[in-house]
């Protein structure tokens, strides 16, 4: 194995391959920054280019583009609330509020540090544990995925402000309902399509996120219009410092470490991936926070930004475990890369690191360089990138509209999606005016949808018996954690409330959740 690593290292540091890393990272970051255009489009764009390269260089380039796009996606999430790709939707939850508080520079820097750490920890884990982790990833069955999604959904509270629990729940159910539109794989039946061809494939997550975040935000800005003029002046003058204070570093360091490891593990699962990882990490972080800190989530909490950013980068690195060691793609992006590998005549699988050690190890080692490159590339650029906010609104707003809509269109090539975006935006504005939070809907959509398909699959396999909930140890363990998360904090709060007699609803309590 050590031999292999050295072969890989010598391949990875060949000047041409180093250049591929830089080119890949740069192209990826740039494409990722454009709202809606994510890693899938970025990697697909690279396919024709890689035909002329040898396998290592080609895959190094594609991998660079992939994690570059995940890295870059956070930028537009933070600056304009328009997620660059699905896995950076969560980044907008706390990143955009930070930018609104004139801390765009800090938010971008934190995102860069978190991404770097997540990606690097991921690459190291890949280097040392890929074959072993492959086995772990295969021990997950549908029932375990179901349990994992239930655990994720317990984070609903995490997405709701004070006194908004009911509204958050309503929105989660709303998201669940949207997830049921389209063809149900288990029965093959189409649901809620009203006979429309365009709804057969369901409503895409990216479309939903773009409509409810980017478009809604833009339209609201226009609607509020004039009296925001003054605020705008303030926005323009202060981009904020990029520096994090010592306390802030102390605050986010454990978060980043936790989320990186957690994100990597979720990314390793073929049925999950970077988007799921970012949602789960955000929920986990919120559940771990103290009551006081919980209230900051969604309003520009540093931890709420660091968690999904570390997790999504670690997860996209993690998704190389099933890809390289088993030949199983966990996402659309890795499926394209699998196609590219096979086109080279290279079969990913348990024997890849024996048969093609140069490819296997050089790709992994290049990821380490890649993350370094991304950090070096991005940090100095932050002041320039955040100048984007200096663009006068009459120009910026149409630009955001243009990129958001073309971004969604370029994924599906279906004009119906644009109409759909408009309809959803109108609904979202209405709901927003009534102070319904949007994030729980996205959570319900993405986790709820997966929860449903995995449950129905598990039921088909078990012949309709729910016994797997307590008979499979892994499922039972995850479900138990979910129950604890769900029951313990309110119980503690209830106890405390009783002790304190009747105070105003506690905002200052210090209990751990």
């Amino acid at each position: 194995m050590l031999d292999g690593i050295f072969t890989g290292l010598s391949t990875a540091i060949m000047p041409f391959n180093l250049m591929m890393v830089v080119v890949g990272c740069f192209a990826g970051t740039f494409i990722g920054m454009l709202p809606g255009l994510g890693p899938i489009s970025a990697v697909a764009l690279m396919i024709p280019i890689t035909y002329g390269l040898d396998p290592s260089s080609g895959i190094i380039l594609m991998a660079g583009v992939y994690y570059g796009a995940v890295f870059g996606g956070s930028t537009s999430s933070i600056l304009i609330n328009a997620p660059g790709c699905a896995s950076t939707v969560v980044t907008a939850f706390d990143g955009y509020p930070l930018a609104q508080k004139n801390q765009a520079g800090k938010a971008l820097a934190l995102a860069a540090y978190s991404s770097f750490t997540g990606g690097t920890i991921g690459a190291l884990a890949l280097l040392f544990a890929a074959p072993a982790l492959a086995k772990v990833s295969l021990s997950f069955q549908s029932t375990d995925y179901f349990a994992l999604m239930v655990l994720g959904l317990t984070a609903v509270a995490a997405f709701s402000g004070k006194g908004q629990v009911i509204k958050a729940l309503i929105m989660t159910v709303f998201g669940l309902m949207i997830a049921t539109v389209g063809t149900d794989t288990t029965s093959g039946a189409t649901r809620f399509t009203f006979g429309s061809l365009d709804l057969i494939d369901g409503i895409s997550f990216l479309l939903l996120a773009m409509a409810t975040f980017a478009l809604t935000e833009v339209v609201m800005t226009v609607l509020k219009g004039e009296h925001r003029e003054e605020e705008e002046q303030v926005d323009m003058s202060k981009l904020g410092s990029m520096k994090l204070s010592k306390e802030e570093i102390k605050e986010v360091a454990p978060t980043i470490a936790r989320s990186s490891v957690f994100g990597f593990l979720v990314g390793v699962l073929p049925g999950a991936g970077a988007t799921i990882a970012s949602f789960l990490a955000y929920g986990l972080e919120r559940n771990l926070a103290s009551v006081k800190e919980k209230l900051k989530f969604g309003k520009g909490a540093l931890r709420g930004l660091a968690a999904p950013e570390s997790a999504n980068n670690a997860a996209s690195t993690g998704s190389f475990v099933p890809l390289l060691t088993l030949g199983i793609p966990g996402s659309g992006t890795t499926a394209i890369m699998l196609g590219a590998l096979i086109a080279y005549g290279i079969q990913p699988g348990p024997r890849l690191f024996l048969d093609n050690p140069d490819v296997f190890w050089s790709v992994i080692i290049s990821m380490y360089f890649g993350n370094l490159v991304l950090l070096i590339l991005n940090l100095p650029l932050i002041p320039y990138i955040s100048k984007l906010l200096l663009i006068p609104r009459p120009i910026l707003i149409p630009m955001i509209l243009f990129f958001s809509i073309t971004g969604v269109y370029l994924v599906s090539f279906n004009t119906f999606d644009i109409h759909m975006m408009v309809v959803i935006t109108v609904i979202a504005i209405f709901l927003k005016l009534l102070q319904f939070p949007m994030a729980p809907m996205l959570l319900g959509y993405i986790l709820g949808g997966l929860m449903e398909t995995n449950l129905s699959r598990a039921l088909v396999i078990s012949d309709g018996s729910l016994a797997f909930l307590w008979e499979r140890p892994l499922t039972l363990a995850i479900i138990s954690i979910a129950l604890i998360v769900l029951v313990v904090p309110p119980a503690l709060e209830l106890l405390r409330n009783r002790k304190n007699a009747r105070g105003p609803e506690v905002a200052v309590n210090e209990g751990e959740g």
Partner: protein
Amino acid sequence: MLFKTANKKTLMAAMLTTCLTAGASFHVAAMESIHFLIPGGAGGGWDGTARGTGEALSKAGLVDGISYENMSGGGGGKAIASLVEMADQKHDTLMVNSTPIVIRSLSKVFPQSFRDLTPIAATIGDFGAFVVRKDSKYNSFKHVVAEFNDNPRAIKIGGGSARGSMDHLVAAMAFKASGGDARQVRYVAYDAGGKAMAGLLSGETTILSTGFSEALALAESGEVRILVMTGEERNEAAPDVPTLKELGYDASFVNWRGFFAAPGISDEVKAEFVSTLEQMYDTEAWETVRARNGWVEIFTPDEQFVAFLEQQEKEVGALMRELGFLK
């Protein structure tokens, strides 16, 4: 059962007729332009087929101008509708499609069928295959069938597409041919091939119904074994893998990929499309693309293609009716 590989005689005949109909222009000019209509997004199977074919045609100098258009929606229905509605302006358009066009028009996903278009040719194909984990107790498909006939609920068949779509139908077809009840097949649907494979390796499904070329790649990685495939005869890529027919089950299946032109194009234009595609097979450019993708050639042009589609529609329809997907 669903498809018979064109034998040499019919191929020769087809070549002769196309040569004759294409007439004098045959060896002279390249086609002016082909516009490929792809009913799905970038990076999918249809996309790869159209772009690979386009690349070969253009590099071989058979067609001067090649363009592509992705139009997803409605499982391909959107593209079909557009091709039919704007047929007058789409004389140079070739839409790529595959077996699902038959399945989806039967299940009324979209109102049109291949009859509303001008079938040009099936160009490449892939067989179905059944795969088990390398440490599975099943050593042959016969063994699985015996167990299935004993207790159908014990065999869980995974596949990377919804219930009622191709992977499910191929499994139902195989078990029906082996004397079992197709309705008893317990099909576990995953939303992508990779996830279905992960399900098989995790042990929650017994066998995986998938495409032969994908199965080959998976088997090469050493994690799985291919029990059987659905070709008419064994394939040179894996000579050890028996066919269903060899085992005594009268069933075969090929998932073709091919091209359709707009309805109402003239016979000359149709012949030009057919001959252009046919000439492609002998070019080096095509061989490069084909080898890169591991495609199997199954050139079935024009009337043969129509006859094949009708046959497939009949068989798939009967199967779907039996399974309760059609009334």
